C-alpha cells in the first residue's frame, strides 16, 4: 500500500515526531512494508465490522477494585531529581508571554 509523504507527515504530527524529507523517504519503504504485513489480517474478516463489539480477553471484575484512599504522594524533591526543576516545579521555557 502506497503512503504519500503528506500522509506520513500527518501521522508524524499526531505522534509528535518529526522527520526531514530525506529521513521520510528512507522511512517510507519500511513503513509501507509494515502496512502490507498488517494487511494480513484483512483477508480474514470481510465486510462492515462497525456493529460488532470488540472482545476483551478478560471481563473486568468491578467489585474487585481497590478502595479509593488518599495516600501520601512521593516527595517533591524525589520527583524532580530526574529533571530540571525550579522552585518545586518542572521547569520549561516560558510558554505564555
Amino acid at each position, binding site marked *: 500500500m502506497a503512503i504519500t509523504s503528506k500522509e506520513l507527515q500527518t501521522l508524524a504530527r499526531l*505522534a*509528535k515526531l*518529526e522527520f526531514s524529507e530525506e529521513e521520510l523517504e528512507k*522511512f517510507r519503504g519500511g513503513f509501507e512494508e509494515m*502496512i502490507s504485513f498488517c494487511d494480513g489480517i484483512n483477508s480474514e474478516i470481510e465486510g462492515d465490522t462497525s456493529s*460488532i463489539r470488540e*472482545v476483551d480477553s*478478560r471481563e473486568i471484575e468491578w467489585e474487585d477494585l481497590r478502595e479509593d484512599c488518599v495516600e501520601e504522594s512521593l516527595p517533591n524533591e524525589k520527583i524532580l531529581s530526574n*529533571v530540571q526543576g525550579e522552585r518545586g516545579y518542572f521547569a520549561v521555557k516560558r510558554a505564555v508571554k
Partner: protein
Amino acid sequence: MSGRIMRLSAMLQSGEISSRELTQSYISRIERLNPTVNAVVHTTFDEALKNADYADRLIREGRATALTGIPMLLKDNICTDGLPTTCCSKILQGFKPYYDATVWQKLRAQGAVLLGKANMDEFAMGSASETSVYGAPRNPVDITRVAGGSSGGSAAAVMADMAVYALGSDTGGSIRQPASFCGVTGLKPTYGAVSRYGLIAYGSSLDQIGPLAASAGDCSIVFKAICGKDERDQTSYYEEKAAAFDVKNLTVGVPEEFFSEGVDDEVKEAIEAAVCLIESAGAKVKRVKIPAFKVALPLYYIISCAEASSNLGRYDGIRYGYRAEDYGDIDDMIVKTRSQGFGEEVKRRIMLGTYVLSSGYFDAYYKKACLLRGRIIREFAEVFSGCDVLFTPTAPTTAFPLGEKRADSTKTYYADVCTVPASIAGLPAISVPCALGKGGLPIGLQIIADRGCDGLALSCADFIERQISVQVKVCREASL
C-alpha cells in the same frame, strides 16, 4: 545447569558460603565476561553487596527463603528506586526511578541480590536485542549470533552464568524466544499472574513479567515468589488452578499450524522428538488445529503497536529522561525530544500504532485485530477442552547471526510467529531447551497451558528436562 537455585541456597543456608562471597564471585564473573557478552547495561554492585549483607543476616536469623542471597538481574525496563532504568533507550538516559516495581519489592524483601540491569531491545521492541542503545548482547553459545529479544541480556547472562536467574518481560515472546536462542528456560506467566506495577509499559494488554533461569525448577521458585494480586496493577488477579502432574494422565496437543512453512526442519524434528518422548512415557498425543494462527502475527503487531503509540506518549522530556537542547516553544521541545530520543524501530512502531488507530483506518486494522483476538482466545479454549498442554516450537529457527536481519524489520517479526498466539490469548507458556541444532545451537520447545495452569506448564517442562539432557555448551570462555 539444573536446580542452580536450590543447590546454591543449600550452600548458603549450611554456611558453606556467604551471600557476600557468592555475590563477589558473580561480580568478578560479570567484570570478566560482560565486555564480550554485553548482557548487563547497568551494574549495581554496591547495591548488590548491601543486598548480600541483608541476605546473610536473614540466613543467620533463620528467616531465609530459597531466593535469599541469590544473585540475579532485572531487565532494564523494571523500575528500581534510585538505580538506573533506561529501557535501553536514549530517551531514558540517566533516569533513576523513585519507586520499586512490585516484583523487585517482593524479591528484595526475600533477600535477593541485584547485580544490575540486563540489556534488551529499546522499549522491548525487537527480537534480537539489536535495537538497544547500548549495542546488542551476544549469544554465549556462539558470540557471532544474537541472544534473541527483547530480553536478550537476561537470557545471555543466565546462559553465561553471570547471574543465577533474571527477570524478563514478554509481550509477544520476549522471554521465550531469547531463552530458546540461548539454551535456558523462560516462563511467560498467565496474563495477570504477576504485577506489572513498575514495569515500563509497551503493550499493556500483553505485557507480562517472568523468570529466565537454568531450569524449570528454578523458574518455578522465582515465579512463586513474584506472582499474586497487587492492588497497584488492576489486571493482576492470579488464582492458580491446581493441576497435579501425572504424565500417564496427560494429553498433549500438537497444533499443526505451528509447524508451517518457515519453521526450520531441524526445529520441527526436535519438537516431534519431544512429542514422541512424552508419548512413550504414557501421555496421550492429539493433533489439533488453531486456524487463526495465520493472522496472529499481523494481529499482534497491530495491537502491540497501537498500545505502544499510546503508552509512549508520556515521553515528552518534561518530567524525566532526555530533553532536546535547542527548541522553540514547548510543542517543539516535545517533538524534538521524542525525535532525537527514540530509535528507529521505536519510531516505526509508534507511527504504525498511530496509523492503525487513526480515524480512517481504525475499523480496518485495530477493530478487526480485536475481533480476531477473540477468535484466537476461543480457538485455544476449544483445544484446551480436550488437551492439558500444547507442544510447539518456541522459535522457527535457532539463533541467527548478529546484524543479519537488522535492516529488515518484517523478517525479524517472523521470529515471534510461534510465541505471539499464547500472548494474544493471555496463556502461560514456557520455553525449555530440547535439542541442539547445527553448530550446537539450542532449540527450544514451547509448552503452552491453559490460563492459570502455569504450574502444569512448569511441571511438564521439568519432566522434559529430566528426560532430555541437553548439554548446551557456552563458547569457550577464553574466547568470550
